[in-house]
Every structure is written in C-alpha cells, then in structure tokens.
C-alpha cells in the first residue's frame, strides 16, 4: 500500500486531533526563548489544513497543495511558513502522481529540506525543525512499507529531539543567548516529534516508543 490523498487527509486529521492537546505545552516551550506562540499557531494551522479537503484531492500533488495553501493563509510565522513551504515542495515534486511509495519519502523530504534551508536561512545543526527533518530523511531512506516508515519516523524524530536537547540553539535571537537554550527542547523539534508520533501512531504496531 502506498500513500494516496485519502491517507494524507487521514494523517492530517490525526495531527489536528493531537495538536489541540499539545497547544499549551508547545506555547510554553516556545516562551522559554521565543515568543510563546508555536502551539497556538500550530493548532490553528494544522486545524486549517485538516479542513482543506486534502482527503478528497484528485491526487497526492493536489492533496499536498491543499495543505500548503491552507497553511499559508493561516499564518506567516516562521515554523508555519516552513511547513506550508514543505507541502508546497511535496506538491510540486509529486505533480501528476496519484500515489507515492513509502520508499520515495526520504528522497522527497531531502528536497523539502533543501527548500527549507534556502527559505529560512538556517543551517543543519542549528537546533531547529530542520534537524528533525534531516533525521527523518536519514531514517526513511530504507523503508519499504507504512509500518516501517512509521516506526522509523517516530524513533528518529524523538531521537533528534533528545540528541539536541543539551546542545545550544544557534538560530535567530537564541544564538546570541545560545547557552540559555541548553537543556531546553526547541519548540519546532518538539512539535515535530509529537506530531510524527500522533500521525504515525496508526501506521505501526510498535506502541512503546521511548519519549
């Protein structure tokens, strides 16, 4: 079974369900060094994406495009814009394709990641959502079905979060205060790990992922 529009729609629905309970936790993670809006922003953005009708799209490209447009009109925040841009990149890459194979995911995400780097101006290793995506690119390289992909994604996103927790943030204002970020989760990486967890939950039998 490969990825189609209805699967994308279902995934975004699971994310939208999860983000409600994550809202205040993500706000508070962002408030430590940023402006405290990551959770409320994502709740709105993912909510809007879930309403975008992606499940009924004509093909995966269209589904990704719907998510991108919904996200872009819901926010202009850094993370939200990067996420919307990621879906736009997926839509462009999958133009004309009814489905995407699980084994394609890593390659698609690698190009997404390039776009995010170009758009946002940050680098790998800065302790941002980029590092989570990078971990996903690596982890998904050898998967061939949904269950494998789900497990790999959950493990790697969580892993990246843990690995970077005690490193300093090098991005934006936080860089100037890099040391203050040691020991704190980056809100974008935290969001990524939690949402991947929620989205992948239904795709895998492995329930006990360490958090």
């Amino acid at each position, binding site marked *: 079974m490969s990825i189609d529009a209805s699967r994308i729609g279902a995934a975004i629905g699971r994310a939208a369900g999860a983000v409600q309970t994550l809202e205040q936790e993500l706000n508070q993670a962002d*408030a430590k060094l940023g*402006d405290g809006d990551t959770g409320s922003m994502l709740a709105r953005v993912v909510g809007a994406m879930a309403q975008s009708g992606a499940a009924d799209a004509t093909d995966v490209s269209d589904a990704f495009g719907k998510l991108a447009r919904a996200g872009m009109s819901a926010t*202009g925040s850094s993370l939200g814009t990067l996420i919307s841009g990621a879906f736009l990149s997926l839509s462009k890459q999958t133009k004309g394709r009814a489905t995407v194979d699980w084994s394609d995911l890593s390659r698609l995400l690698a190009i997404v990641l390039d776009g995010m780097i170009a758009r946002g101006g940050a680098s790998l290793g800065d302790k941002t959502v980029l590092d989570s995506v990078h971990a996903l690119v690596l982890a998904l390289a050898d998967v061939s079905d949904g269950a494998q992909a789900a497990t790999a994604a959950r493990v790697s996103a969580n892993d990246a979060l843990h690995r970077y927790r005690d490193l300093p943030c090098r991005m934006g204002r936080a*860089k100037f205060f890099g040391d203050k970020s040691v020991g704190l989760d980056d809100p974008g990486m935290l969001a990524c790990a939690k949402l991947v967890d929620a989205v992948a939950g239904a795709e895998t039998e492995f329930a006990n992922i360490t958090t």
Partner: protein
Amino acid sequence: MKKLINDPAHYVDEALDGLTLAFPSLVRDGAAGRVIRRTHPASRGKVGIATGGGFGHLPLFAGYVGCGLVDTCSVGNVFEGPNVDSCIEAIRLADGGRGVLRLYGNYGGDRMNFDMAGEMLEDEGIACTTVLGTDDIASGGPDQPARRRGVAGLIYAYKAAGAAARSGSDLDEVTRIAAKAVAATRTIGVGLAACRLPSAAKPSFDLGDDEIEMGIGIHGEPGIWRDKLRPADMIADEMVERLLADLPPAAGGEVSVLMNGLGATPMEELLILYRRVRAQLQGAGLTIVAPLVGNYVTSMEMQGASLSIFHLDAELKALLAAPADCPFWRVG
C-alpha cells in the same frame, strides 16, 4: 492576567475593525482584510512603502500607515508574521508605479513571507526592494547586524523613508534612506512584567515580583541580565550607556530619542526615565532633536520600556522634520 477581549480567534480582526472605525484615515483591504492601507492612497508616481508584521504591537505596525510614513501594512496573527497573501496584497496596494520598498522588522516568518510575495509578484513587474529593521542591540552583537531584530526604532526608518518617498525620490533613493535610518538606530528594552497571548493559558514569561530583565525582546525573549528592580535613573543610565557603547560609524552630535512604553507602563514613568536619559545624553555631548515619549511600539500589556536613539546627520534630521500624519504620530 486579565484581558478585555472576546474569542481569542477573533482578536486580531476585531481590533483591526476597531482601528479602522476609530481612525478613518485607515481602511482594511485584501481578501482576508489583513492589509491596512491609507483610505486616500498617495497619488500615483510616488514610491510605495509596504510594511507588515505580527499583531500585538500597536501602534506598530499598522498604525503608521499614513501620509509621509508607510502606505500599506500586512497584518499577521499575534506575534506571527503576515501571511504571504497579505504581503502580496500589501505590496500591490502600495505600488504607485515607481516600485515598492518592503520595510519591516527582521524576523524569520516576516522575511520568508515578504520574500515569497516578492517572488510571486515578479511577473507583475513591480520593482521591489527590502530593508529590514535591526535596531535591537540585545539580539545580536555589533558584528552580527543580520541577527538583530527590529523593534521600536523601526518607526524612525518609516519616518525617514516615508519623507523621502513623499518628496518624490525614486526607489533606490528611498531604499538608501531606509537602510541609512536603520543603520543609525539603536534600541534596548527593559521588561518588568510579561504579556499573555490571547490564546495562551499563561504569560509568556515569569519575572519575580521584584525582578526586571534588561535587554528583553519585544515578545519577551530573554535579555542580557535579569535581576532585582533598580531605581529608574540607574536603569536609564544603563540603557544609555549600552546604546552609546554601540555607536553607528557615522554618529554625529545630534540624536532623536524614543522613550517608548511597552504597553502597561504609565506615562509618568516614561517621563521620569526620559528626564534622566536626556541628562545623560546631554552629558555625553549629544543634542536631542524631536524626542518622542509614549506608547509607540508595544507588546500588548507588557510592562517595561524601550529606549531608541536615532543618530542624525543633516539629511536624516531634515527627513525627521518633514510633515507626516498618521493616527499615532503627526509631524508639522
């Protein structure tokens, strides 16, 4: 932390309705109503200035739409950059045939969206330039201007670029002036108490009952130190000292000063601070021109103040004195 609001989901739109109803020189435009523009746009042939940013900083950004200032403003959600559609619309609506300067604060989301908007508008043939406000000295070292965020000092860039545009300068010249004004502006903020996002359950940071934070960002981002409350004069002295330790290369003997309240700080306190700031600047041999004291750039109900110094030469001084008119700042 109590707020006089309705559903947080409607916070921005209700406030924008209030803004345009209270100040008829402003009007909402754009498909989602997230552009504020001049009710009576400038006549064609003027370089347009589009700004934009997250919400919760009134009068910034939308309040500075007016004659001799900026033409349009894209409005994001609270502390979120404006979305790409509103940036596109703000640029289009600012265009009077001679190109548009995008002039806004240096924040990731804002930059990405204005950049994307520019790319999307390439086909329409609107010449665009960009200048980013980077006046907050606490968000990056003097060697890292690109890391510095735009805070209260942005309004000096509005004023200078707006005056240049109004006088008929072309896009390159307006852009040069905006960049020059940004380079001549330094700001530092001090925080006493946080604000709370309408949708958040808690204030975005906690300061002890007798604590303050020097160098705080306009959203409450951590500053340089956090310590016990000190007398106003000591705080003013430190702000002046830090700003003067970071002089722009061409700083002369005249400055304008913006003693700005972050939202919940009474006018009385801003005046007490200003009196000391003035004495210290005079002591340093500087002359103050056209000082501003009040709530010009806020963070909703954040308590605290920021001090901006705008280093003048003859050109910037003349642009600062040129007539301008918006709901929150009128010159001449």
